[in-house]
């Protein structure tokens, strides 16, 4: 990894002078605001329309998920993680289940692994579709929202058929899956892949070469690869800055090493590159799903896991590449049925701290674009 001494200094403490020494305007954006994606509160210091600095106030959606974990058994805590990043609940579940499995030293059987990958990648697409719709809506294009939600519905239908829930799926269990796939699952997934491929072109047709979209996103909210690493930014935001870092390749988990896919990266680290990277990730997810659904092996779906889980004393950190970035679980076990401590490293929370760096010197309208492009979910930021 990069040597910390070579990192660029992020001197955030030097405020600019206002133009003509006018008074700066302090605007309180949120927690009730149409474009802060939930209950984020941003305090903006403005010089006219120019942003001189901003501060995020979070915690409006704090539910104490990590504290709850200390009073639940490992199995009982599993549904709670779905409530953190509620638009990518399957990824949360995968990270948690794998972390506990690592602690218990068991491994899910291959059939379960394949189905996990399919569902997780479907969920990544659902998350990106929600991001695209709301991001475009923030920038003023209202139509893509309805297109993406129309297609996201198909993914949610597959989830619903599989486990009965659409958003907070609780699809995985520690050691594998609870449910065998329903009849026609593979056909549904294949149908979805062929259904959604032209739809992605449709989104791109609406936006990628749209003149106004280009002007609104190119050069907006730029962050260099160095700064991104220094701030701990991960996921598509990091990759758009030119850093080829994807945990699915870097530290393969589940059985991602069996699949052939690329990591799309950008160069400039601006909002447009992040858009392009995520659009490319749609297609890579489709590739993974296609490969996985062809080769689902037969076999059991649950590993041998004790009914009452008492992991050995110790600690574990396991992270996966969630749609928004690195989602890590740090679990300390004291040998009892309940975790001693669980700490979640949510990608949205860490990515959000780059907001100030990305917005300084830009205009108010860009703050909206940058909040959209960071793809934050407040349930995950506050936990």
């Amino acid at each position, binding site marked *: 990894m990069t040597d910390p001494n070579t990192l660029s200094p992020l001197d955030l403490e030097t405020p600019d002078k206002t133009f003509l020494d006018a008074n700066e305007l302090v*605007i*309180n954006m949120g927690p009730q605001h149409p474009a802060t994606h939930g209950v984020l509160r941003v305090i903006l210091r403005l010089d006219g*329309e120019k942003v001189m600095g901003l501060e995020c106030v979070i915690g409006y959606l704090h539910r104490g998920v990590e504290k709850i974990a200390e009073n639940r058994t490992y199995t009982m805590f599993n549904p709670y993680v779905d409530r953190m990043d509620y638009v990518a609940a399957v990824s949360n579940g995968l990270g948690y289940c794998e972390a506990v499995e690592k602690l218990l030293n068991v491994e899910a059987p291959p059939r379960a692994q394949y189905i996990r990958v399919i569902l997780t990648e479907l969920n990544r697409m659902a998350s990106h579709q929600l991001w695209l719709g709301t991001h475009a809506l923030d*920038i*003023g294009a209202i139509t893509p929202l*309805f297109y993406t939600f*129309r297609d996201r519905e198909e993914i949610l239908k597959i989830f619903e058929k599989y486990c009965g829930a659409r958003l907070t799926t609780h699809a995985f269990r520690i050691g594998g899956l609870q449910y065998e796939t329903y009849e026609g699952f593979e056909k549904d997934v294949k149908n979805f892949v062929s259904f959604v491929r032209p739809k992605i072109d449709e989104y791109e047709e609406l936006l990628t070469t749209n003149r106004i*979209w280009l002007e609104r996103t190119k050069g907006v909210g730029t962050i260099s690869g160095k700064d991104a690493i220094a701030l701990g930014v991960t996921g598509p935001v990091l990759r758009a800055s030119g850093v080829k870092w994807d945990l699915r390749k870097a530290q393969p988990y589940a059985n991602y090493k069996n699949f052939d896919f690329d990591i799309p990266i950008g160069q400039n680290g601006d909002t447009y590159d992040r858009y392009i990277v995520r659009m490319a990730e749609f297609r890579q997810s489709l590739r993974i799903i296609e490969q996985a659904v062809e080769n689902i092996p037969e076999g059991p779906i649950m590993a041998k896991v004790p009914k009452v889980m008492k992991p050995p004393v110790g600690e574990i950190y396991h992270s996966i590449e969630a749609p928004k970035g690195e989602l890590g679980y740090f679990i300390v076990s004291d040998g009892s049925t309940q975790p001693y401590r669980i700490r979640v490293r949510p990608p949205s929370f860490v990515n959000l701290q780059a907001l100030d760096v990305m917005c300084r010197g830009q*205009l108010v309208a860009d703050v909206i674009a940058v909040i959209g492009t960071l793809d934050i979910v407040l349930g995950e930021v506050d936990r």
Partner: protein
Amino acid sequence: MHAFLQYIQSYLDSDKTPGGAGNIFWATVYILLVFAGLSVAVIAMNWLERKILAHMQVRLGPMRVGPHGLLQPIADAIKLLLKEDIIPAEADAVVFWVAPFIVVLAAFTVFVVVPFGPTHAITDMNIGILFMLGVSSLSVLGIVTAGWASNSHYPLIGALRSSAQMVSYEVAMGLAVVSVILMTSLNEASTGTLSMIGIVQAQQAQGEWFIFKFFPLGLVGFFIFAIAMVAETNRAPFDLPEAESELTAGFHTEYSGFRWSLFFLAEYSAMIAVSSIAVTLWLGGWLRPFPNALTGPTWDLVFSLFPGITFLLLAVMCFYNTARMPKHPLFRVQTIGLAGFGVVLGLIGLILLIPAVRVRITDIFWFAAKVAAFMYLYIWYRGTFPRYRFDQLMKVGWKVLLPTGLVLLILTAIVGMRTELWAELQGAWRP
């Protein structure tokens, strides 16, 4: 009594506008007609916008209130009128109170000179177009006062954006308008006109709409105006003053109920007003297609049948959809309502086919049809484009439209002069 009737009838035979004829009775009637027509148009536009936008976005739009949501705008209007009228404690109450009225007044006053036909205007001013531009830009005043009086940050920024935007786009708009006024002076006497009716008559005399004049100069002027007018009315993609995602609701964030609906009314009537200017200046105003090429009583008859046939087609559409309504008893009222609506449209269509009505209405129909095309464009823009950022908006206004407008103006003048000189050399006047 007899004298009064004569006074009323005397106007019907004249070929002037009521204002031009000095007939106060008919002027009042026209004012009421325009006001009522405009209000109906805004209500219809509200429904159409929601419906068309919905269909662009793969959804249905209003479907519950009345058949296909036809009564939705009325339900909304009633809701708005019944809502509590909140004046924020920190607001400047008087200015806050006055602001929406300034906007509405400015938006409605411009219709005094809009020519729906050679005689169908409230009055014909010799400075008509100047009057329109001048009065419509007064609405900036209302918006600025609204933003300032709210005494809140978001409205203030919205108002500042709005004033900057409207003022800067007016410059480009003015240049495009001047190029048209130059074109009107291409006649034997070399006298141009600023009168709205005069501009349309000039197009008729020269035998072509100004959008095709000096191709592509007319077209460029039209495009400049078409872009500037969207910015002027604060509509997508230039809807920054009320950019929902940034400023919640811009300058009318603090307004509620009736006052808010006044802003809404003003926005839509301003859209209709600028569209009327564009139609009058470039698209031949009330002139039917090919007024000079396809002449003669037969063609006159064919084109005068259009209004009636349009309404009859709408009625047929209504009946077709009545037949398609679900046969469930729950839908009975809606089915009857839609059929009734179809009957009303059909009756209007039949009335419009009566010769005496037909002759008087045909100009208004063509004018309204052209304006409606612009209204559709507005909705289409909203469904398609993302929103510009403030600095980009200013860049488009000052660095693209303004220089283009200046070049256009100079070129129009040169080409116009060349045409006149050529005509003089030929000895015969042929514009």
